[in-house]
């Protein structure tokens, strides 16, 4: 068995116990291609569309409707998330930091792991119809949220990271979304 056309059978870092020794840890070491393939497979399995969120969807889920800078408000509060400022230096279970929940109750949007979005990295304004949501190609994709490794300024709901779609790292995971 392989992952997304590679010769690998598991994510990078899977054999390093600090990233996998608790089933509640966010998965890391997964490329954008692999995350997208996982969503496609899960869609077949559950019988409805599962996909990566667009960066616009991610941001709405993280900020709510009042345009706050962080899921909990407008000031950085390190005890609400796992970042370089106050975190343990690695990932933590996704049910940790409950006070960092977004207005919609979503956890770990800031810190712990950065998350792949479906969106190509293109300049603002965001326009879903301009091709940035096309899943083909090798253009860099937007990552969001900052991670356990991020300094404060990168751990904001508006901050846009980007990586090549084949890239993997031990602070990069993903979230799943779907149509209603």
């Amino acid at each position: 068995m392989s992952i997304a056309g590679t010769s690998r059978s598991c994510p990078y870092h899977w054999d390093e116990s600090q990233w996998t020794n608790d089933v509640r840890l966010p998965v890391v070491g997964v490329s954008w291609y692999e995350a997208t393939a996982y969503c496609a497979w899960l869609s077949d399995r559950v019988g409805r569309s599962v996909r990566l969120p667009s960066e616009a969807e991610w941001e709405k889920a993280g900020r709510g409707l009042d345009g706050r800078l962080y899921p909990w408000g407008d000031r950085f509060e390190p005890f609400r998330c796992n970042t370089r400022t106050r975190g343990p230096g690695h990932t933590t279970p996704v049910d940790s930091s409950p006070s960092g929940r977004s207005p919609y109750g979503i956890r770990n949007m800031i810190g712990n792991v950065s998350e792949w979005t479906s969106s190509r990295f293109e300049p603002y304004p965001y326009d879903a119809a301009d091709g940035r949501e096309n899943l083909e190609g090798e253009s860099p994709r937007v990552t969001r949220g900052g991670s356990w490794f991020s300094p404060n300024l990168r751990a904001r709901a508006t901050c846009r990271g980007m990586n090549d779609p084949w890239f993997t790292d031990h602070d990069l995971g993903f979230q799943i979304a779907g149509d209603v």
Partner: protein
Amino acid sequence: MGISDEQMNRLVLLSDEARVWREKGRFDRERSDHTVGLPAFSIAVHPVTVGEYRRDVTELPVPLG
């Protein structure tokens, strides 16, 4: 979505690092704030976990690629 000038300037007041970011144009990729219409969607309550990924990938019937 995006950061407003007011929010960026507030960060600059609180942090020397943010001042450097503004001077070097590092906020530019997230400026300026604008309204985006979105169809209804759902999103998971947390990132995909090791347990979920391990279970699902183990159950994969065929290679994904």
